């Protein structure tokens, strides 16, 4: 009965017994120990999330105080905003759900803007600052929400002492933390009005339309008519330099109708999520509607281009979620000229002289003028 050779004294036997007890104990309580280690890990992340969230709230408040010069203390109203929620449309009968969602998103956007106007009376008519503040508040809202959800599952896990609840949370935590970090850096960018990775689309559009006359199209977008390689290019982007994605779906619809569908092609330029291993700022080409968001814009664009049988090409600049919402990286900025070259080639190869093409720079136009 001895684990150790040549040792039969009583003290060794006691030691062996303790070892066995410990070993058998681990069979029953090993999982629990594992769970405690997991809980600890989640706790650490939750702690980090709390600090990030508080920091986010602080940045939002500071920015509002600095720019908006509110007459009363804005913290109560900001806290109310942070808890703001949106209920999506009922999908039991999906017929017409896109327009319901569209309406809900419009109302949400308007409501947030009204809220910001109340918070910042100083810049009530400055659309740029209002947009930037709204974006800042939205990033703080996202951080607040992430923290609350993680905390919910953490407490639920501790209450039920279920390995599986804790395990699920622990498994997705690295991705959640990455997203939270992205929003934390987004906050600073929005507060200062710095271009973010997602602004690459509008930046390219601005470069194409530079020096041409610009007119507004609904909603919150601008379009310019640019002579381009013997063709006429209609270049469209969200109106900058405030934080604004506009509604490219509506704008593209309007422009296509204006041209009565006589467009040789539609080229959409956007920031695309890169896979791990791909380089930041890589440019790649494809077809389809390159536009993110809840799908409302993509739906409207697809409806229109199908109606008129317009070919739609897409060019994306690769970046990860963190790069997309944090201040623009040099690599992404440098990709702009490469994309313009691709557009040039595309237009030359796939359209005839005298054709009209529509080029859309999709994304948040923060920090990018026109």
């Amino acid at each position: 009965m001895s684990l150790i050779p040549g040792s039969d004294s009583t003290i060794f036997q006691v030691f062996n017994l303790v070892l066995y007890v410990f070993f058998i104990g681990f069979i029953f309580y090993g999982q629990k120990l594992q769970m405690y280690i997991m809980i600890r890990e989640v706790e650490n992340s939750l702690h980090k999330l709390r600090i990030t969230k508080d920091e986010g709230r602080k940045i939002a408040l500071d920015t509002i105080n600095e720019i908006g010069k509110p007459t009363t203390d804005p913290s109560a109203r900001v806290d109310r905003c942070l808890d703001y929620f949106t209920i999506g449309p009922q999908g039991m009968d999906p017929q017409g759900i896109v327009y319901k969602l569209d309406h809900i998103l419009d109302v949400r956007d308007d409501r947030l803007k009204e809220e910001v106007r109340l918070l910042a009376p100083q810049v009530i008519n400055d659309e740029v600052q209002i947009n930037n503040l709204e974006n800042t508040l939205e990033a703080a809202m996202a951080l607040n929400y992430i923290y609350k959800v993680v905390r919910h599952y953490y407490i639920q896990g501790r209450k039920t002492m279920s390995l599986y609840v804790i395990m699920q949370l622990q498994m997705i935590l690295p991705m959640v933390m990455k997203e939270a970090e992205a929003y934390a850096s987004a906050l600073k960018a929005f507060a200062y009005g710095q271009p973010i990775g997602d602004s690459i689309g509008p930046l390219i559009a601005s470069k194409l339309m530079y020096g041409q006359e610009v007119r507004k199209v609904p909603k919150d977008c601008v379009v310019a008519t640019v002579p381009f390689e013997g063709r006429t290019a209609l270049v469209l982007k969200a109106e900058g330099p405030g934080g604004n994605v506009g509604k490219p779906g509506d704008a593209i619809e309007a422009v296509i109708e204006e041209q009565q569908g006589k467009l040789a092609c539609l080229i959409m330029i956007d920031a695309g999520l890169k896979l791990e291993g791909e380089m930041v700022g890589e440019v790649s080409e494809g077809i389809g509607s390159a536009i993110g968001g809840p799908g409302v814009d993509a739906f409207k664009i697809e409806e229109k281009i199908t109606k008129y049988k317009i070919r739609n090409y897409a060019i994306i600049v690769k970046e990860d979620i963190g790069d997309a919402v944090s201040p623009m990286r040099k690599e992404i900025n440098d990709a702009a000229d490469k994309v313009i070259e691709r557009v040039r080639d595309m237009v030359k190869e796939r359209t005839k002289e005298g054709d009209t093409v529509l080029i859309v720079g999709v994304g948040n136009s923060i920090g990018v003028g026109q």
Partner: protein
Amino acid sequence: MTSQTQTKTTNNKISSYLMLIILIVVALAVVALFLAVQTFIEGGSDNQLAAIMLAGIGLIALAIAGFLIHQSRKQAAEVKLEIPKVMTIIECQNKGCNNKTIREFQRGDYVFKELDVTCPKCNGRQMITAAYKEIREKEKTYAV
């Protein structure tokens, strides 16, 4: 070139369950090490082997205890939010001048903004042509 925000907390209480396990492990380790020394003094090749095994068990147990304590104290580690500086690139609009200025981003800057300040070299109009951050540390790559 990076600004850092550091926050420290003193929240490092260890759950009693974990503490109990750590205590048992440490106690076992101490007993094992004690026995190792005792066996080694007794001498003999058999005893020497036993001493080495006991010492091994003791050290592993101590390592486990250390790991558990480390795990639970990790929370006290500081949380850092690193924000790299964003630079604004200003270029002179005069053809043939190409004067380029780089400065830190200021509130109100945006790409394609025409500045009131004229070019120091030729008094031409100046415009912001880019605003970006540069990340110096290389991302870890995995050769596949």
